[in-house]
């Protein structure tokens, strides 16, 4: 990146508590958790659609914190999937191959979609493993 990063940016006097979208979002997450517990219905929230003021997003992630699970998926760039301190609430950061942020989701679910193995891959995997085992046995004989 350019030397622009070396220029310190100080946000003067903006009390982050003033324009907080973090609190309402946390309530939305709370409702989603209740729904998940009662009906099993998952919820995904796209953070790109939320108007965040400076510092708001950080406040949200700070409030959610870190839980037991932290996973990295390598598909079209890195996707980081972390469970927050509230089980069932996951933050999914999708990044491009060059490391730019694509989209960030908050998933309220038992297992985020990116971590689940796609069903169509299973049949192919079985066939592939069979083929690899066959090749091995022909080599040995």
């Amino acid at each position: 990146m350019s030397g622009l990063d070396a220029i310190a940016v100080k946000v003067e006097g903006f009390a982050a508590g003033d324009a907080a979208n973090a609190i309402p979002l946390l309530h939305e997450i709370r409702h989603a958790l209740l729904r998940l517990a009662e009906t099993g219905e998952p919820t995904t929230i796209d953070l790109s659609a939320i108007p965040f003021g400076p510092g708001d997003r950080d406040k949200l992630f700070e409030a959610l914190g870190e839980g037991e699970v932290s996973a990295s998926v390598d598909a079209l760039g890195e996707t980081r999937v972390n469970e927050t301190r509230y089980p069932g609430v996951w933050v999914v950061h999708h990044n491009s191959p060059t490391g730019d942020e694509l989209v960030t989701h908050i998933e309220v679910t038992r297992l985020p979609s990116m971590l689940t193995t796609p069903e169509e891959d299973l049949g192919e995997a079985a066939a592939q493993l069979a083929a690899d085992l066959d090749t091995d046995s022909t080599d040995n004989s």
Partner: protein
Amino acid sequence: MKDDLTLGERLRQRGVSRRGFLKYCATTASMMALPPSMIPAIAASLEKAKRPSVIWLSFQECTGCTESLTRSHAPTVESLIFDHISLDYHHTLQAAAGDGAEHAREEAMKGNWGKYLLVVDGSIPTGENGNYSTIAGISNLAMLEEVAEGAAAIVAVGTCAAYGGLPMANPNPTGAKSVSDLVSGKPILNVPGCPPIPTVISGVLAHYLTFGTLPELDALGRPKAFYGQNIHDRCYRRPFYERGEFAETFDDEGAKKGWCLYKLGCKGPTTYNACATAKWNEGTSWPVESGHGCIGCSEPNFWDAGPFYQALSVPTGDAGNTLLSAAAAGVAAGVAVGFLNKRNKAQAAEAHEQVSADDLSKD
């Protein structure tokens, strides 16, 4: 030479896994401002999407819209979308020039008649028989008429193509007109903004690619997904407006504290765009967050709607209906600081809707 692979097939051919495809669909959904619950439907649709031919005509423009699009901050998705659409003609991005380029355009038109997507940026000058702007000796006006005839749909990118833009500013020396002023009988989608936010442009193209149709439009022909709410309603400084905390100059205490910029001419209340949520420069910031009021660049006639630094509540001499209706709604809020009850808000919304409908009848 076009192949007939669907997008799904093409991605797998390039070694994109199903998880990668899911991520691609999640990004596309976000780009199209669709809820995450639609991701499975998008995935199913993109699996089957064929490769559309796209012809991009640049007329009386500054190339800012193309610049904006090529700065779109989702490079993976961009390259995949642009690899998948067949961008058969684009002055800035194509390698060909001269007769070869024009020939490519004609071939694309012939081979995809009735099915190609026409994208236009820049206004169309109509003065002097349209000869203020020509390409290969053909006036913009004539080229638009010719290419529009075989297009499945037309996307007018940027305020110039959508509403005439800066070239139309008083006294409009070139007789500049918008695409919808000149073309009828074809679905036209306006993506205004000076320039439009990059992900809005690509989001619209992604929608077309995914569903083969244009998204739902408002009264001014803009996709509701991106232009359905005004800046004021999504602005993070709204609480300051409600409390009557305004910056009076660009360097006073209020300005430093990030207070509302209404008094410094912000046109947020009458402007519909996605700047407050999508932001600019890879989500870095946007005019209001950087301390400058919105200039309303995605609205018709923003160039002649009065000074940029005069509050909406102050009527201007020659601005016409647009500003006066907005002023009528804004007076209560501007003069009685912080006083805006629900009734005034409803009236403001109503006033805006009426103005928008009137604006559609061109003068």
